[in-house]
Each structure stands twice: as structure tokens, then as C-alpha cells.
């Protein structure tokens, strides 16, 4: 015989402000097998939890219904509460009378109260039929995979490795360093970006616990927290990095020049190249899209069109014979206990904005392009020269919110970093040329950060930048000048500024390919393709897939200090996980009744986790059986099972039907 206790939470006024608590408790008291019902201001508080524990003992309760907020919020809290009073934690049910009731029915208190009573009645019906469940234990692979080698991923990898765990870092570009390596200086301190980043890159490369895989991508992920099995595609570089010493002869002699991705098209690189001087690893790769010999090989297959030169200069001059035209792509399979996703961001492509020239005007450049022009190791050696004619600009106009705060192009969000990098660019431009005049069009200046407001003021006081409140509508060429049209919305008059160079503060966007990766990892992304955290405030680096953590600008626009903090936070969570010797798995898994199973194996086809396996019984029949350590309890197999042979522990058909039938009153 069940002895059920019902605990109705006020949640301050969140529930009590709408639902009549007294009536609800009275109604609960009359429900079948309920022997005790009470209310509490905050059931989740220490006092509220003690009241549950006391009632369990005093009234010899063997099942509990907590009628409060969403189970996503406090299911674990109350499972621990009843467990500490000696009950099996799975003999507790939550009736969500906040999100499902008081918050959505604030305009109708009467109906809300009667719905709350119904929800409790359903939970009571279910808990009556609940059975004790026990988690299984599985072993832990104490290694972490970090995806993305920007500052976030570097920080996460170093922190995890320094805690003593092995780390594999996968970066799809030929070098680690990410966006930060493209910056000349950083706000608000004007630290040289390379000077503070490069030592970390070297630390990472030399760390005995870290394996670095560049030009590599995650291909597939199987398994579950503690035991992920990951396939990593090591792309062919056509250069044997074991033999290569990084001497640089090949990229000096390569005759093919192409636009450098690292320099955002402001400079050139060779077909065999390292992306930048401080690249890690400092060994080149061959870009097959532009390499002359590769083009020749393609031509040789069809003999169509003009014959490209056979070249092979790099191969001829390499002192260690490291060029390997046959180098295959490799698939590595590795096991990990935890995964940190730090895939970073890219900047908005302004060519979609026709009113700003649609990318056709050479002297309208992006903020990241300006960084490359200002960098001493950049294509102009740190001289700010405009792309069209190499002239030194005397009037520079900076345009804010390009690809941000714009519903029209599906980018309604604020990119957060641009206001500050605009101030930085103003100060740096003035350092490059004291005669330069800088105008910055803005809508709002957002300087929420340590020393940010002061830095913004510095751009006015030191660099003499004139900030003009208004969004630019049009940039057009008139001879060698660029005319920028805006409104000074503070004085309410149209403004036209003839500029020599226009810098667009392009916003932050999710990286290419992140959607595919999110699907591979079974984690969610939002409508802008930023990855979604388990809780935006309380679980900022976790995801809804256990053991997969997210960090940095892959989650949303972030600056460097936040990204570093995020990388560290994700590392701390991963370290906490990897430090366990074994893991308890969720016991709410599927179970097959072998008597009912007709061996159609439809469950094998629908399961995304590969949990159903086959077992031959003593009577010779082969039936389905669920591998509990792989099952996530999603329920797909249950729906697919025609004879109804599969049930989900904790959500059996009998339990769910009991909930539904409780409504027939």
C-alpha cells in the first residue's frame, strides 16, 4: 500500500499569486493513497527540504509528490531530498504547477487552481505505480577532446592537461591561434595580441599531455559521457610533418601567389604555406585549390584546356624530402571521457550590404582587415595603406553595427565587441599617424566591462575621434574619395563625410560548419547557429548532452577575457568529470519484454544511440535487448515497437496511462 505525501510549493508569489494553495492542499489530501499534504513558501529551501524529510519519517511516507516548478529546475534536488530520508529517489514525482500553470494562466486564477489540482492528481496516480530504480556504473576514459584551437580552446586544453589529464586538440586550420592571432592589439589595454597569445600556443604544442591535430576535423561521435568514441579526419597536407623541419625554403620559392585567408585578403601567401610567421605547428601545408602541380595532375586526367606547368619546385628544393604528393587523408579513432567545443566565430560578410558597396569598393574594409593592415607582421608591415592605391588615409570613417542589430538580414543581436574595437582602432590609427581624423558612426556605445568606459573616453580624448550618433545609410565613391552618409541623430541633421578609408565594424557570426558539428555531438544551436548552453545563467558551459561542454564565442559574441574565462570554466567542468573513476548512468532506460518481442528489429533502425542489440534465447529465438549504458531513454524505440514489447523504466505505459486516466473525473 502506497503512503503518499504531497508538498505544494508557493514559490514566493510565483505560484501562490495565482494558484489557491489552501484549496490545492485540501484537494491533494483527498486523493487516493495520499496520507499527508502540506505547503511551503519555498520547498527547495533548506527548511522546505527538511519538512519533506521529517514528513517522510513521521508519516512513514513511501512515495512523494512535489508540486512546484519544472523538473528541469529541481528534479535532482528533490530526488536527493527523498534519498537522504531513505526512499529510493525514483519514487518521487514532480507536478509542475509553475511553468505549466501559474506562469501561463495568470489571468484566470480559478482555472489555474483547478489545473494545478489536476496536475497533482496525475503525479499522484503515477507515483503510486513508480518502482524503485538503481543507476548502473560505467568506467571513465580520463581523456578530453577539445574542438577548436582559438584562445578558448587553447585555455581549456592547457587547464585540463595541467590537471593531469590527456587532451587531444583538434583544429581545422593549419595553425592554432584562431581570431586572436589575427589581431594586432587588444582592448582595453592595448596589449600586443601575438605577444600574449604566442607563448600559450607554444606551451600547448610542447605540453606532454596534449596531442595537437591541425588541419583536422571531427567526423563522428559515438558513445556517451565518460566513453565517447570519436573519429577524427586528419586532412591530407601533402607535407610529412615528421620529416619537415619548418625551414621555410619551400614557401619562399613557391611561384604561386594567392589571397591570404589569415590576412583577410589584404595580403598574399604561397600555395605551400604557413598561415603566419608564429604559426603552431610551424610547418607548411599545400593548398590543393591553387597548387600548380595539383592542377597539372587534374589536367592530366582529362587533358582538357591549357596544360598547367608541372612545377614541383617545393619537392625539388625540400632538403628533407618532406613533400608527399600521395599523402592520404587519415581517420583516427580515439576515446574520450569529455568533449569541449570551442569553435569560435567568424565576422559578418558585408558583401550582402549593397548600400555599403556590397564588397565591391576596395577601400571599404572590415575591422579585421584593418587589424591586418596595422599589424607589424601583416602584409603592409604595419603601415596603414588603403587597398586601392596604397595611399595613407588622412580621414577614416568607422561604421558600427554592420551585420548587427539588423532584423532585415536576420542579425538582430548586438555583437558586443565592436564598440570597443572601434575605440581601439581609433586610438591605434592615431598612433600610426597623428594627423589622421577619425569619425565613428554608432547607434549606442556599449562599454560594459572593466576599464571599457575609460577606454572609450580615451578614444575621444587622446585620438580625438568624433563619435556621431547615427547609422550609416550609404557609402559611395566620388573620384578617390568615399562619401559616407549618416544622420547626426543628436542634432537631427544629415551628415556627409568625405573619407579616404572606411572601416566597417562587422559583427560576430557563428563559424561555418558548426551546425553539422552540433548534430554530430547531439547538442543544440539557436537560430543564429550559436551553440546553446544547458542554462544561460546557471549552467553556462554545460549542454544537454552529458560530457559535452561549450565555451567561448561559439556560444555567442564574447571578447577575449570572457572567452578565456569560459575556456577555463569548461575545463573545470571537464576536469571534475574526468576525475571520477566511474559514472552512474540514468536508470530510466528502455527494456524489452522478450516474450512480446517479434524480432522485427525496428528498434535497431530508429535508435540514434545504437543501444538495441540482439540476444538469442534458449528457445532459439533471437530478440532485441537494450544496452543500458548506451540507452538515453529518448523513447523512440517504444513508439516504433509494433507489439508494444518495449517499455521505458520510470515512464512505463502503465504509469503514463495512470496519469491520463486520473483526469477522468
Amino acid at each position, binding site marked *: 500500500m502506497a503512503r503518499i505525501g504531497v508538498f505544494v510549493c508557493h514559490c514566493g508569489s510565483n505560484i501562490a499569486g495565482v494558484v489557491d494553495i489552501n484549496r490545492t492542499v485540501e484537494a491533494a489530501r483527498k486523493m487516493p493513497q495520499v496520507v499527508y499534504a502540506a505547503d511551503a513558501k519555498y520547498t527547495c529551501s533548506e527548511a522546505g527540504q527538511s519538512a519533506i524529510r521529517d514528513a517522510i519519517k513521521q508519516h512513514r511516507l513511501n512515495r512523494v509528490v512535489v508540486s512546484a516548478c519544472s523538473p528541469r529546475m529541481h528534479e535532482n534536488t528533490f530526488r536527493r531530498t527523498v534519498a537522504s530520508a531513505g526512499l529510493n529517489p525514483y519514487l518521487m514525482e514532480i507536478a509542475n504547477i509553475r511553468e505549466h500553470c501559474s506562469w501561463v494562466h495568470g489571468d484566470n486564477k480559478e482555472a489555474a487552481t483547478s489545473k494545478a489540482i489536476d496536475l497533482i492528481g496525475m503525479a499522484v496516480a503515477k507515483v503510486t505505480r513508480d518502482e524503485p530504480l538503481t543507476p548502473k556504473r560505467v568506467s571513465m576514459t580520463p581523456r578530453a577532446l577539445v574542438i577548436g584551437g582559438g584562445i578558448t580552446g587553447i585555455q581549456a586544453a592547457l587547464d585540463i592537461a595541467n590537471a593531469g589529464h590527456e587532451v587531444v586538440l583538434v583544429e581545422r586550420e593549419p595553425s592554432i591561434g584562431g581570431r586572436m592571432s589575427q589581431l594586432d592589439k587588444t582592448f582595453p589595454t592595448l596589449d600586443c595580441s601575438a605577444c600574449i597569445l604566442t607563448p600559450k600556443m607554444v606551451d600547448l604544442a610542447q605540453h606532454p599531455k596534449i596531442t595537437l591535430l591541425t588541419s583536422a576535423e571531427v567526423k563522428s561521435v559515438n558513445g556517451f559521457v565518460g566513453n565517447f568514441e570519436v573519429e577524427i579526419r586528419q586532412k591530407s597536407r601533402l607535407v610529412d610533418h615528421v620529416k619537415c623541419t619548418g625551414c621555410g625554403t619551400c614557401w619562399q620559392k613557391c611561384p604561386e601567389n594567392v589571397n591570404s585567408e589569415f590576412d583577410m585578403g589584404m595580403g598574399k601567401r604561397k600555395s605551400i604555406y604557413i598561415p603566419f610567421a608564429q604559426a603552431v605547428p610551424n610547418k607548411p601545408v599545400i593548398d590543393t585549390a591553387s597548387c600548380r602541380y595539383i592542377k597539372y595532375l587534374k589536367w592530366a586526367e582529362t587533358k582538357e584546356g591549357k596544360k598547367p606547368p608541372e612545377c614541383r619546385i617545393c619537392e625539388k628544393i625540400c632538403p628533407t624530402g618532406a613533400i608527399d604528393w600521395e599523402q592520404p587523408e587519415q581517420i583516427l579513432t580515439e576515446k574520450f571521457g569529455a568533449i569541449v567545443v570551442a569553435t569560435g566565430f567568424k565576422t559578418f560578410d558585408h558583401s550582402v550590404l549593397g*548600400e555599403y558597396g556590397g564588397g565591391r569598393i576596395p577601400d571599404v574594409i572590415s575591422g579585421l582587415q584593418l587589424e591586418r593592415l596595422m599589424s607589424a607582421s601583416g602584409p603592409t608591415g604595419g603601415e596603414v595603406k588603403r587597398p586601392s592605391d596604397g595611399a595613407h588615409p588622412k580621414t577614416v570613417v568607422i561604421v558600427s553595427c554592420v551585420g548587427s542589430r539588423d532584423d532585415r538580414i536576420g542579425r538582430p543581436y548586438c555583437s558586443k565587441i565592436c564598440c570597443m574595437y572601434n575605440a581601439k582602432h581609433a586610438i591605434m590609427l592615431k598612433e600610426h599617424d597623428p594627423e589622421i581624423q577619425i569619425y565613428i558612426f554608432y547607434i549606442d556605445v556599449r562599454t560594459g566591462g572593466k576599464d571599457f568606459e575609460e577606454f572609450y573616453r580615451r578614444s575621444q580624448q587622446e585620438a580625438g575621434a568624433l563619435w556621431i550618433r547615427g547609422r550609416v545609410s550609404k557609402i559611395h565613391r566620388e573620384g578617390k574619395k568615399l562619401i559616407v552618409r549618416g544622420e547626426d541623430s543628436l542634432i537631427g541633421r544629415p551628415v556627409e563625410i568625405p573619407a579616404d578609408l572606411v572601416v566597417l565594424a562587422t559583427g560576430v557570426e557563428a563559424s561555418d560548419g558548426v551546425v553539422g558539428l552540433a548534430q554530430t555531438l547531439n547538442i543544440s544551436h539557436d537560430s543564429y547557429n550559436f551553440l546553446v548552453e544547458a542554462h544561460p545563467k546557471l549552467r553556462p558551459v554545460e549542454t544537454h548532452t552529458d560530457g559535452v561542454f561549450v565555451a567561448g564565442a561559439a556560444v555567442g559574441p564574447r571578447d577575449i577575457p570572457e572567452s578565456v574565462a569560459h575556456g577555463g570554466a569548461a575545463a573545470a567542468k571537464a576536469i571534475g568529470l574526468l576525475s571520477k573513476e566511474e559514472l552512474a548512468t540514468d536508470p530510466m532506460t528502455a527494456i524489452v519484454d522478450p516474450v512480446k518481442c517479434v524480432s522485427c528489429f525496428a528498434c535497431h533502425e530508429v535508435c540514434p544511440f545504437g543501444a538495441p542489440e540482439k540476444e538469442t534465447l534458449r528457445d532459439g529465438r533471437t530478440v532485441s535487448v537494450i544496452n543500458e549504458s548506451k540507452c538515453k531513454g529518448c523513447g523512440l524505440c517504444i513508439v516504433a515497437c509494433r507489439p508494444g514489447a518495449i517499455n521505458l523504466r520510470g515512464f512505463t505505459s502503465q504509469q503514463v496511462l495512470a496519469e491520463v486516466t486520473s483526469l477522468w473525473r
Partner: protein
Amino acid sequence: MAQTPYAYFPGCTLHGTMLEYNASARLVCEAAGVDLRELKDWNCCGAWSAHTTDYMLGLALPARNLQKAEAMQLPMVVPCAVGFSRMKLAMHEMENPAVLSAVNQAIDKPFKNSVVVEPLLKVLASDSLDLEVKKPLQGLKVACYYGCLLVRPQKILKFDDENNPQTMDKLMSRLGAEPVDWDFKTECCGAGMSMPRPDVVNRLSSKILLAARSMGADCIAVACPMCHFNLDFHQREVEAERKEKIQMPALYFTQLMGLALGFSAKKLMLDKHLVDPMPMLKSKGMAA
């Protein structure tokens, strides 16, 4: 040559001050196999004034013309950008059945709002037309000027890009000319302000003229009588204000097409412009 029939709505100015647009349009259409069947008793589309001061009038005036084309069961072609814009925007409003029924009452005709309306530029720039280019416009740098009403709003007019349209540029390339890459293709010339606020038109058209000159254009090609008026007629006032000669000829794209197809300057009425294009055309060997 097979002739494709269209219901032709020329618009008031093509029968008035801009007769050269009408004449050149008819010449090249005939040569290109576009059969223009002018609407009988067509009326003014209301231009800027009707929709500006009276919602229903702004719909009923275009609707009376649209109804005629619908009855002819032909797509309507409009050389005038103002007319094109008014037809399309009125049709957009009339997608609301209540509005359509009110308009039907106002024009006292059954109109189903089911007619296809195209700008003449789109029809004549079609790749499927068989154009015999007899005198390629070799070495002529043309700044193609589309104005506002031909392209904006792109979502409704569905013709070409709002900022950097290409239809006329591609046509000019096909005729052997060199279209200029410039940023004023769809900036406003001042539209109907010519009479009530000529100062506004002078300021706006001067920007367009100077931008075209600064990008090295020999002439501006237009597809709108109002744009033409503001760039050609107002140029003398711009010159007077700036105390400098600009002498940037503004030609209808149909006139440039006509030259390339071998029609004479006289037939194309190149003498109708206030800024005489002949010296420029002669210097390029394109007119005698």
C-alpha cells in the same frame, strides 16, 4: 521576326515632353520583335500626386489601366518607371480583397488584379531577344542610372537589385558599351520636386551628375522620364549654381540601343535633349 505582343502603357510624359523616349522605344521594340499594343484611352497613373493625397485615387487610376491590359489578356509593359512603380504598388495593395473590391467599385469595372506588369527595360534586356548590333558602342562609358522607382522596394517590384542593379549594365555590355561601376544607380534624383522645389532637384541631380563624371562616364543612361528631366533639364541650373560646365548627356537606354541597332540620330530624336549629346557621340564616332 516573330513578334511578342504586349499591352503598352506609355505614360503621360511619353506623349508629351518625352516623346523621344516613346519614339526610340517603338523603334527598338519593332527591331527586337516586341509588339507594343497601346492601351486604348489609357489614363494617368496618378504619379506622385494621387497616392500622396488620396489613398483610393492612388489605386483607382492605375487600376483602370491595369484592367484594360487584363481584358486584352496580355502582359503590360511600361517604359516609365513612375508608371511601372504605381502599377506594381497598387497591385500589391489590391492583394487585400477588401481593397480590390473597393477599387472595383471606384473604377466601375470588373478587375481581378491578375495582370503581369514588366518594365520595358526588363523586356528589352532579355537574353532571349535577337538583337542585331550593327554599330557596337565601342569605347562608350555609360553610367547606368535606374533611379528609385524601377527597383525599390525590391520585395514588391521583383525586378532587380535595390543597390546595384545589373539589367541595364548587361544590356549596355551586350551593345558593346562599357558600363561604369558606380554607386549612384538607385539614388534619388528628386523625383516630382522639379516644379514645387526645384532647389531640391538641383542639389540631388548635381550629386548624380558629379558622381558619374568622377567615375569617368561619357553619358548617363536612364529608364525613367522623370529622372531624365531632372538630369537633363535641370543640368543648366546645376551648372549655373556651380558656375561650371558639366555637359553630361542623359540618354534613354532605348536611344543608345537604337544607335547600336543602326538607327539614325534623327530617328532616335537625339536632338530633343537640352544637353546636346551629339558632340560626345561624334567624338566617339557614333554619330555623323
